[in-house]
């Protein structure tokens, strides 16, 4: 079950865009962070069921934040939401333990199917 969602992106607009694509009637509790370090700190505080992570961010990149989060919680479910769709970027984050990669700009249907997949994974765990 997904209850707490953490969104890590330096762009407030990107966070707003992402939130708007998530269903409103599921009672999700949203938490936000503006860079990888803040994202990691919030992750440790709130232990979200699902984290959306940008890659290109100041202070601490998404790549570094994913590694930090996975070291802290190897079962973390992290969906990377990025404009960096180079093969090497995708390969790197998947090898670091990301759950999947979604390309910006987001489409509602991509988010919906990602959520279904995460729910299914969490149910089986």
């Amino acid at each position, binding site marked *: 079950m997904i209850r707490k969602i953490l969104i890590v992106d330096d762009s407030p607009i990107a966070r707003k865009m992402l939130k708007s694509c998530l269903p409103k009637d599921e009672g999700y509790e949203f938490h936000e962070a503006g860079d990888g370090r803040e994202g990691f700190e919030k992750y440790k505080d709130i232990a979200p069921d699902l984290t959306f992570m940008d890659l290109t961010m100041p202070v601490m990149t998404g790549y570094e934040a994913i590694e930090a989060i996975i070291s802290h919680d190897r079962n973390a479910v992290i969906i990377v939401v990025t*404009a960096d769709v180079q093969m*090497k970027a995708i390969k790197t984050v998947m090898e670091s333990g990301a759950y999947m990669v979604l390309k910006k700009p987001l489409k509602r249907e991509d988010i919906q199917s990602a959520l279904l997949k995460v729910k299914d994974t969490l149910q089986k765990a």
Partner: protein
Amino acid sequence: MQEEIILSDEEIAILQEIMNISFGKSAADLADVIDTHVVLSVPFIKIMQVHDLPTYFKDHVKEYKTISIVEQKFWGRFKGDALLVFSSGAGKELIKMLQHETSPGFESDPIDILERETLMEVGNILIGACIGKLAELLKDVVTYTPPMVVVERNYSDAITENRYDPSSTAIVLKTDFCFDKGGVSGFLFLITSKDSVTWMKEALRLFIEQYE
């Protein structure tokens, strides 16, 4: 100098995100063609008087001994000038990266022609994909002039001070990049004038409206 407020903070943030998506697309297009990974950075938007542009450029490239520039003008409802500035030696490094793609005829060309053509090709991909995506997201269609290339010059020779109307206002969209090999780095500057602002404000509103 105080910035003229022609775009709100929210409009600038939307434009920044659109630039991020657009340059991400061009980096991926380039990575499909040459064996490299382009390390991206957070894009930056600045509104300034055109007469401040030369100093602004200079501040960004002063650490490079020489620079190479690929320039393309573009016009639609979004119109302006794209300047892709590469660090010293970028042309020769890019030739090495493209080596496996070259034909025997290409290899026989003199190095300065190879360098110019390589920079033009890479510039064309990065600029075209970035502006094309930006225009697509803002529901515009743009056309381009052919790319012009300046190879390995000093900053003062490469960017002439009187290239823009000094009395107008410019919106500068900037992103830095570096390649994971060969030490190639640089900046992409998109310079658009205040003339595009009325259209741009409406286009940005329509873009974000999809996510309300």
